[in-house]
């Protein structure tokens, strides 16, 4: 375990105290300090995550754009966005771009600390009808993964999220534990994984709800290294 203390950095996740409490180990990335492990070895954690795991990805890069010209503007810049709303579109470098509506898309971010697509868009010339949404600070981002994920989220969300009804890449913008949330299905190879993007001010409350729902199935908190093991990266 390294000594990296998230409280020494100017950018902090709302969940950092809860992660410190369980002895998480942090690494510094371009976008902030992220919990990489919550136990001695990432491989054991990965096995736990295969069953049911929860991870905090709030400080990973994240961006969003909205406006009547936003989708066209992104397409002009080489971003692939299809016609369907509430759908994920993969880019050539595996970055995911989520189309939320006719006028909005979101880049939820990947596990590594950097995101070329986000950087490219933020430095590109902005047109009328294209407006940035401060997703990195407006929202928290958690991922729930493992075979028990659908059973667990059934305790929190009224949308049918069973794996044969909510497919890879599907997006649901709905209410989770009475909070507005965006749910994105984004499996780690054969392991089901659902991302949750919600109000950052309620991150602590949401985290507690997820922990409570998880306890029935013996889920646990995992770090980003375990997720990378599952992804095979």
């Amino acid at each position: 375990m390294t000594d990296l203390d998230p409280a020494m950095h100017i950018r902090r996740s709302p969940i950092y105290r809860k992660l410190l409490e369980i002895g998480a180990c942090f690494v510094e990335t371009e976008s902030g300090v992220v919990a990489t492990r919550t136990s001695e070895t990432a491989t054991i954690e990965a096995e736990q995550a295969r069953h049911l795991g929860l991870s905090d990805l709030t400080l990973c890069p994240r961006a969003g754009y909205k406006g009547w010209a936003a989708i066209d503007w992104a397409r002009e810049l080489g971003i692939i966005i299809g016609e369907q709303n509430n759908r994920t579109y993969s880019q050539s470098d595996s970055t995911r771009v989520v189309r939320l509506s006719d006028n909005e898309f979101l880049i939820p971010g990947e596990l590594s600390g950097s995101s070329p697509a986000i950087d490219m868009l933020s430095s590109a010339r902005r047109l009328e009808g294209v407006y940035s949404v401060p997703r990195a600070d407006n929202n928290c981002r958690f991922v729930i993964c493992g075979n028990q994920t659908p059973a667990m989220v059934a305790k929190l969300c009224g949308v049918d999220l069973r794996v044969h009804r909510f497919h890879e890449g599907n997006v649901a913008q709905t209410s989770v534990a009475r909070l507005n949330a965006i749910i994105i299905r984004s499996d780690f190879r054969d392991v089901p994984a659902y991302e949750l993007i919600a109000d950052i001010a309620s991150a602590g409350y949401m985290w507690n709800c997820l922990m409570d729902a998880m306890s029935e199935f013996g889920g646990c908190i995992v770090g980003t290294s375990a997720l990378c093991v599952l992804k095979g990266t």
Partner: protein
Amino acid sequence: MTGVNRLDAPVGLLIDRTQQINFRFEGQDYQGFKGDSIASALCANDRWVISRSFKYHRPRGVLTMAGYDSNTLVQLDHEPNVHADKMMLSEGLNVLGQNYSGSLDQDRRSWLGHLSAFLPVGFYYKAFYKPRGAWRLWSSLIRNYAGLGKVSLATTQEYSDKSYAFCDVAVIGGGCAGLRAAIQAANQGAEVTLIDENTALGGALCYARTNSAESESKEIRQTLLAKVAEQENILVLTNAVANGIYSDNWVAVIHGRRLVKLRAKAIVVATGAMEQPAVFRNNDLPGVMMGSAAQRLIRLYGVRPGRSAVVFTSNNFGYGVALDLLECGTTVEAVVDTRENPTNSLTPLLKEYDVKLVTGANVIAGISTPKGDHVMGVEVVAQNRPLTEAFRISCDLLCVSTGFVPSSQLLSHVGANVAYDRSLATFAVSDIPSGIFAAGSVLNRHNLRTVGDDGTYAGSAAATFAGYKAAGNIQPPDPPDAAEYNHRSPIFEHPSGREFVDFDEDLEVHDLRDAVSDGYEQIELLKRYSTLGMGPSQGRHSSLPGVLIASESTGRDPSILGRTTVRPPYTGVKFGTLAGRSFEPVRLSPMHYRHLEAGAKMMPAGLWMRPAYYGSGNRDSIIREEALSVRNGVGLIDVSTLGGLEIRGPDSVEFLNRMYTFSYAKQQVGRSRYVLMTDRSGVIVDDGVACRLSDNHFYVTATTSGVQGVYQEMLWYNAQWQLSVDVTNVTAAWCGVNIAGPLSRDVIKALTNVDVSSSSFPYMAVREGFIADIPARFMRVGFVGELGFEIHVPSTYGEALWDVLMDAGKAIGITPFGVEAQRLLRLEKGHIIIGQDTDGLTHPYEADMAWAISRKKPYFVGSRSIEIQAKRSTARKLVGFVMPDADKDSVPEECQLVVRDGDISGRVTSAAFSPILEKVIGLAYVEFDQAKVENTFTIKFADGRFGIAHVTALPFFDPEGKRQEV
């Protein structure tokens, strides 16, 4: 040894004879088996009196063994009103009866039964109210006698939760019809959820005897269960109660401590029918039970229901009951059949056993033991013969099989019609809405083959409705055959009464006749006046006889009388189940933990938590100290909860002009301006500040609790105006602090790249830059009326910002201050708080906000209404006041009244003792003619004292605003 009445293995579907369970009942130790209910274990041990009735405290025992009746409600340590015939035994369970004083067997209040002449139906409407004031005395006495079980305040909270579930076809009821429906629907490709409230699937197949060969039910049940198990797309939920069907096929299923909210595309209701008691004298004695109850005792629990029995029947099921009793060693003294010439295949078998068969006769009374605690015989008389010809048959068990009523409650929930059907001699269901299907004895079919075919038919129709068509044609079932099973009217009035129609409420036949003669002929009124059907059984047994008696008494046809409305829930439900995890969202500032560490007392502000003040000790002096620290030095307050909206696009100015009362076209980039929002009716709804960051970009703040509504309204208006503007709610993305006080500039100037000198950063200016490497927006606004800087940063930097400022200000004594001090400081400056100093009707002229209304714009939301208001005289005004004679201990509270000539003429909206002015100041609504400066008015304190207030010009402190503009 678990009971003298326990039958030998293998009978007893639910019990596990290898696991003995010890429990206590009324202070005595008993043993039962795992799988026993409390009632079955007690019956096995020859313990038949299990509880007492509500009104007359009559001893009661098992009636249905299915939880349909409430004769055996018992008290557990942490739960009252438990159905003894449903609750499973657990090791060490401590059980008591209910409705007695002293002991169950020696109830000191059993004499109440003798008072029945003085407790007629509706007696509490007719007595106990004279002389005047008598009710108060009577009510506490009656309260003591009334009520069922007791709630233990020492009960610890259970963990209850909820979950959502989905299926194509929900089948409610796992009897023959339900099993066949589930199998058919699954065969057609539907995802099926099969729900049954019992531990074992099968419904009546588990206990009923359908023909002479006792094994038929068993075999059919095995076959159906095997087919269900084979199907991968049938999910089975047992011990699960469908407690209500709501809009769009949403079913509430109570499964243990979990409430499952199930959405189905189609529903099959196969909930069966309830065997009905006959109404005759002493029909409530322990030992008098339904034929199906006796069969449940035998087949589910391996308990012999009695030693010598009489079966009272109007259908062939009764003969099956008689055979079952004979086979388990009970003597059957007689089968009394109400029918003159019953024909069925079982009669010859009875002859073999030498059972007396009495046809065309009725049981018209039960005979009780001297203690009144068990049946010891019955009186029987032939049809249409006088009572004098009645003869006795001794017995310790009377099994009644005289008819059924469908368990149609769930169908009533969805609006189906349930009314008396003359041809079937019971209630029948019609007009079932689309998407819901029913099958089996809930539709008055009892023949086993018909029931099964009905199930298949309904299951197929449900699956088809859900989008999974059948391969071929499914035959509709035979019509309802309930007429063969139901006695027309098994109500046998007796000159000595005690023929109970409603067991829960101890209502006899004459009570209902009396209610009708008291004038309550309408079924809904009859119910409420007599309390018929209002007990825990909710009319399961009293509805039908109630309607028949009312029909006879009023001379109106029962199908016209109708039925009382049936609503969810189907059974009682605990509050914990409805609450689940009690999700209560809370929003925290990124600086939240720093406040806790500094000893803040937190208070809710909408969904947010904010520090009210810091420290423990006298609340009011702490607040005054915090306020003085701001005026005399420098204070720091977390304003993260403030609403924030980005308004961007070519039509930004036009949009702001339409949404707010003020004018924004001429606002310069790098400046801020007040925003005031009114609604369509001209009422003030929110305020804030608009910062112009560029030509087409405004960052607009709103109140903490108002921003969500403002955001919603803005989107609604622009959905119609279609202006080229984007509105984004960034309330959570930007957190912030306000550092205020004469020393505030000194704290920040070294930390930021922005020039914060007075000339470069004047009052009302806006700047973007960095503070200690954190990107930030800086504003100078009025706020508390001191030199100050409002600093907004992205939320993930919030805690670091707080740390940097507290550290930088430590040397000069920077003090965190909370919402209460902020309120006090702002009151000193006469700032109004929307929602506290304004109410649901306050318009700008009442609050002296006319200055914020632009006259040059053609339109803004509420402008027309404000114009109309301006033409009228204003009834009231919000004014500032001081109370020179009051001290810091006599500060009026919010909403204390302004009185004039003995009448209310206004109210206080805010008040405080100002430490800097050393007097009580406040805001209040007064009548228009009281509003002149120097005028006095009277405030009434909570304790009845009066205080004099002087109307004062606002602001109270630093009226020229010099301090905030340095």
